[in-house]
């Protein structure tokens, strides 16, 4: 017989010929199959062989059963009384049951959880970014208030300078000593100037600890940076410390459960 790979027969649709041989070819393709069978000796032989194999398969004697599968009353009672837990357990360890995907999922989640909890900077950096965004949002309003109503702090600064200048003229008074009270006197102007905004009152507590009275224009920014600095230092330190061990414990439990389920399925398979 010629090698089908080097002859045109190698390019013929053998599945179509097999279908045609047993009368299963689709009507729209039957003509093509008939043409192949008529024109190609190998296809014709293939069709004859497939038909002969089908007939031989049909003629195969039936295997003889030597066991009776009828249920005894005890077996029926056991099947009826199987508890939901027992059914669930069987569904887990049965081939093709829930056990395989469930064990794989648990082990994957467990490993992923352990990895996440073992890498310290990953949740920390995420937490820092999130909290930095939140803090920036809360601080943006006072800064914009200063920008929008910039005349107010400027006016406060000017009035403070005027006051200090006026104080210079006072006998026995130093400029440095005068600047402090003047600036402190000016700082309450800030909430007053931005009183129309509900976030306005937030500014003084932030500005007050910054302390430097000499540079009024940098007070809100410096206070904001200080606030962010405090948040960055304290936020991540508390969040992973409280959630990390819990995540690790839950992940470990998931990993162990998944592994146990896998072992149970293997044992059931061997049994």
């Amino acid at each position: 017989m010629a090698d089908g790979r080097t002859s045109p027969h190698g390019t013929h649709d053998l599945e179509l010929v097999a279908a045609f041989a047993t009368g299963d070819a689709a009507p729209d393709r039957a003509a093509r199959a008939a043409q192949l069978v008529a024109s190609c000796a190998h296809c014709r032989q293939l069709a004859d062989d497939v038909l002969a194999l089908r007939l031989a398969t049909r003629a195969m004697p039936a295997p003889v059963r030597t066991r009776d599968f009828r249920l005894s009353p005890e077996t029926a009672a056991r099947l009826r009384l199987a508890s939901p837990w027992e059914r669930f357990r069987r569904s887990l360890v049965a081939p093709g049951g829930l056990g395989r995907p469930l064990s794989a999922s648990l082990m994957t989640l467990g490993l992923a959880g352990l990895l996440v909890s073992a890498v310290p900077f990953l949740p920390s950096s995420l937490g820092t970014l999130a909290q930095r965004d939140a803090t920036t949002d809360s601080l943006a309003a006072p800064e914009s208030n200063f920008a929008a109503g910039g005349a107010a702090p400027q006016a406060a600064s000017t009035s403070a300078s005027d006051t200090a200048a006026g104080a210079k003229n006072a006998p026995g008074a130093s400029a440095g000593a005068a600047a402090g009270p003047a600036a402190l006197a000016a700082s309450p102007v800030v909430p007053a100037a931005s009183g129309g905004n509900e976030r306005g009152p937030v500014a003084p507590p932030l500005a007050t600890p910054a302390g430097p009275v000499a540079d009024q224009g940098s007070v809100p920014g410096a206070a904001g940076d200080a606030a962010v600095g405090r948040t960055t230092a304290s936020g991540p330190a508390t969040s992973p410390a409280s959630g990390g061990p819990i995540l690790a414990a839950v992940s470990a439990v998931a990993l162990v459960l998944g592994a146990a389920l896998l072992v149970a399925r293997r044992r059931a398979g061997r049994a």
Partner: protein
Amino acid sequence: MEDPRASLALDPAQRRDLLLVDRARSGDLDAFNDIVACYQDQLFGLVARIVPDRDQAYDVVQEAFFSAYRALGGFRGGSVRSWLSRMAVNAAMDTQRLRKRRPVQPYPELEDDSWQPPAGEEADPVGITLAAERTAALGEALATITPDQRASIVLFDIEGYDYAEIAEMTGVSLGTVKSRIHRGRLALRALLADRMELFRG
């Protein structure tokens, strides 16, 4: 469209099956065992051709009847034979997937003298020998092709189910069933290329 219940009512075997299922649902174990008695030969013949190992085939059939007994409440009507066959095929396929890495002696019954093809009217020794050889070769080749192809061929060629029923039983599309059958036959032919003379003529 034809009412399926009407067609079922015309089929005495199916009507009997439905009555037995109703009785079994109400706790009549004898009724369930009557169903088992009716179908255990057919089910074992089906499973033993899909699962080459005899012991595994017995276990699969037993498990299929256990599943049927548990699932009596979920039976929604239709053909009891198809319902049982579906359970048996699914159990057989699960077993094949589980055991696919463990080679077994395919069709040991072919080595057993107590299991031989029935003698024809002529009882021609040559014919009997050829038939046995043909059956052994075909059984060996069937055990070699994929379980999906084997199950589809057995269900279609031997059990007589149509494509739609096989598709429903095995949970695949009609086209997949056809493809499995045709590719399985091609695989059989390739495996038996050296012994095709046994089957020709």
